[in-house]
């Protein structure tokens, strides 16, 4: 029977997350002390050796990202901890904040030291107000205790953090949209290039990292990159916290070593399906709808890619036969319609058009040609949208048309 490998969530429920003493007692800030004595290239070297990939959804190589910001000579440089966690189905970052919040901040400080950054923002989504208050409180504690400020633990490094609260916009989780939001404008993603590592917030080089990614950093520095890479597979090292909800008996966060479990085994870990399994939504609303054939797929980034899907932010939502596929897809497209920033026509127009077509199909006024029209709209959005939202919004629609076509076809004559 597959088990969780709690690396980040090890002390869940065992320590007071807001107590610095508790965190120190489990080895907290040892990594920071170690990092202060290392050279910048050594720190980045450990992260490179760990082969850690971003946990926000894009799975970009973290060490490489750090390097690309470290080499920027323009000052000042900024860092952003992206805690917008808006992807439907995702709640892992919330659990990280509720277990070891200091670990995330420690990871941020280490990242700042390694890349020459002196100011950072933690952007907490507006729907987690208690977490925003907690992070503010902890940042103040760290400042008082000398872990933040003009001289970190007496060293020559300086780093300070400002906590910003979001206000209800999924698109602000996108790495260039979060910059616009912090600058006080509407959170519309930017056209890239230039990349955010070159021109980021306030026009300066910026490093944007997800909460879970940063939570891994102190462990990597403390135990070594090699240790981290010894878990998981070659392309998907370490553990990931999967947000399993839906029709499972024990919904919640499950930290699983990548490659140690298949999709089906992960679902079993969460207590198994409560009813007859029809399919699984994987990756979130911008993820895919897959049939039970995928249960034997190993949970790694490369295995998902091989089968034409992606793990996204680690959402797993099994659903049973009482759920209508078309209804879920319609709900998802309505979500994207609300969340589209409205900047580019493929997304602004596409989300609306797709919703209208699906509504027509449900009313019984659709034809077979509408199904091919949906596919065309989906492909257009994927090719022509400026940002990830528009590009991945049609994923669920297209995968459901591929794997659950009979349900769509039952709506047309």
């Amino acid at each position, binding site marked *: 029977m597959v088990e969780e490998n709690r690396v980040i969530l090890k002390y869940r429920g065992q320590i007071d997350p807001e107590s610095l003493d508790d965190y120190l007692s489990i080895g907290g800030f040892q990594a920071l002390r170690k990092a202060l004595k290392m050279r910048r290239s050594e720190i980045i070297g450990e992260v490179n050796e760990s082969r850690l990939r971003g946990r926000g959804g894009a799975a970009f190589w973290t060490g490489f990202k750090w390097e690309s910001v470290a080499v920027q000579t323009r000052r000042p440089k900024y860092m952003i901890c992206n805690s917008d966690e808006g992807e439907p189905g995702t709640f892992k970052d919330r659990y990280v904040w509720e277990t070891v919040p200091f670990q995330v901040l420690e990871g941020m400080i280490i990242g700042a030291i390694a890349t020459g950054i002196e100011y950072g923002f933690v952007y907490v989504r507006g729907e987690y107000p208690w977490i925003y208050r907690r992070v503010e409180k902890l940042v103040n504690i760290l400042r008082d205790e000398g872990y933040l400020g003009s001289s970190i633990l007496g060293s020559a490094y300086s780093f300070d953090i400002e906590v910003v609260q979001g206000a209800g916009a999924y698109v602000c989780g996108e790495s260039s949209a979060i910059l616009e939001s912090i600058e006080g404008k509407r959170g519309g993603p930017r056209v890239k290039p230039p990349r955010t590592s070159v021109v980021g917030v306030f026009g300066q080089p910026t490093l944007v990292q997800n909460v879970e990614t940063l939570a891994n950093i102190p462990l990597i520095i403390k135990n070594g990159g090699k240790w981290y890479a010894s878990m998981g597979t070659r392309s998907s090292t370490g553990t990931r916290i999967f947000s399993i909800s839906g029709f499972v008996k024990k919904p919640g966060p499950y930290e699983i070593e990548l490659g140690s479990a298949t999709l089906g085994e992960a679902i079993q870990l969460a207590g198994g399906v409560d009813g007859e399994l029809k399919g699984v939504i994987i990756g979130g609303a911008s993820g895919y709808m897959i049939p039970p054939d995928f249960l034997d797929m190993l949970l790694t980034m490369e295995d998902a890619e091989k089968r034409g899907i992606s793990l996204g932010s680690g959402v797993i939502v099994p659903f049973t036969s009482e759920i209508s596929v078309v209804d879920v897809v319609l709900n998802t497209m309505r979500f994207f*319609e609300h969340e589209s920033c409205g900047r580019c026509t493929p997304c*602004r127009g596409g*989300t609306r*058009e797709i*919703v209208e077509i699906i509504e027509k199909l449900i009313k019984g006024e659709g*034809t077979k040609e509408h199904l091919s029209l949906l596919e065309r709209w989906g492909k257009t959005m994927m090719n022509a949208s400026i940002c990830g939202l528009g590009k991945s919004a049609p994923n669920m629609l297209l995968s459901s048309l591929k794997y659950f076509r009979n349900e769509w076809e039952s709506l047309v004559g």
Partner: protein
Amino acid sequence: MWGDFMKEKTRVGIFGLTCCAGEELNITNLEEELVDIAEMVDIKNYLMVQSNNELPVDIAFVAGFVATPEDRKRLYEIRENCKYLIALGSCATSCGGIHNMRSRYALEEQYSEVYDNVKLEKEFAPLSEVKPLDYYVDVDYYIRGCPVPEEEILYYIFKFIRNPPVKNELLPVNIQTGNYDEVRGMAFSLDPKKCVVCRRCVNICQKHIGVGAIDIISRGGGARVVVSTFFGDSFENRECILCGQCLTVCPVGAYSVRNDVSQVRDILDDPDNFVIALLDPMACTSMMQHFSREENFHLFLRRVISSLREIGFDKVISFTYAYHLSLIHQARHVLKGDEQEKIATWCPAAINLIRKKYPSLLKFVNMETEPLHMLMSILRNDFGKNAKFVLITPCVAYKNSGEIDAVLTPRELRHLLSSSGVDIDIMAPDKVGFDRECLPSGMMEIMNIYPLGPLAESLLSYIHLFSGSEENIQRVQIEKGVEEIVIRLKNSTKRTLIITEPRKMDKYQESVKDYDYIEIVPCIGGCAGGGGHYPTSSFDVIQERRSMIDEYNNRIVSKLSRWALTRAYENILKEGFRCPL
């Protein structure tokens, strides 16, 4: 289902409601292919071509739009008697095409304009609303174009012979904004229903002008996002400087200028009024480009002048006089080093910019030297109480001026003339040209020269004239959108700063003390790119307007003998030119 129809030939009908019959005619232009088509399908209804016309049909191509109740009845009849209705051509597919231009005015108003006193009988009246076909019936397919190119018609006919049209394919995407009110203003208004959120207006206001009076509001797919001011407030109440660059860049015509045409008509109709047109030659440039077959700008200008006289203007005076009045006055004071006259006042939008964004610089602005103000103080004096003044200018900011009785942009002038039955192209060029009132002769022609700008150049020529020194002018571009012109005189050096990208003024507001004259030009291309012109996205078109004025200026200068030029300038020197200040 479609296969059944192949056994019998598909029945096709080609219809036109109220239209120019262009689409129907275009199909006959298919000539050779038409014979093949006639063999493959059964053309049951094609009024233009055959006398035996029947319903029902399988596919109906319908062109034109619904103008009268009869059209509407016919459209319903066609819809009931066909399987697939295809809207053909711009009038049928989109907003009603050309005919939609009449929907801006009330039906009664138009009726009385065309038919004078004939009563509008409800029974025979056209519909007051102009709507596309899909407002009345379900449309299965849209083929847009005016006219639809022949190759496309062929493509679609052959396509539909084989397969029925797929409903909603190639529909115009519903991205236009709804549920927002118009943003009204004294100078122009924004209709959110037409906006396609291309952001050109927002970008130019934020990045070129540096003001940002408009921005993108709200979020979401479909029709939720719109361009607006703060809570939809009037432009002039907010940061807007009324330069009108948003009007020039909008590709869908969502911005419309305040229409003064009926007001001017009323002024002209009142027999007690003595009406004077202040005509800015720059206004005529875009008129000639867009609507005239005339190629000689000088002649075109003369035709405009005679058209103005034809519809009832008592005098037509060149607005360039106003610029020269202001320039001459300012030149004197800049030569003296007068701090209060440092910033150019000829551009009303630039003055708005100073007032709203850089109020600390107001101490360098003497509002009395504003050209329109200077000219009006002379003219009101000369012509008395019953005189009414109408300014014809490409400048949208002047619409907010209190000095003048009405302001017409080139488009409005065109509308006024054509609705009065005057075709500029067939009017004989006016023999007199501009009226030479108010200012002493001997320098009239000089005052006709349009200071093409930047105005600083003309200012400097006056300075050079007044100082009597050898000409030594140096022009340096400091950066994009910022230029410096330095003139060395006998006893001093005068430095002028010209900012053609107003956003850069942020950087240079501290340096105002280092310069003797500062000019800000918000419109791209100067007045040739004014907001009241016919919009164009091509800088070549704006350049062309400048060349037209250049040619016009050269013509004036070449006609003047050296003697006349010298005399004129001497007169100016002697202050014989009636400076009102």
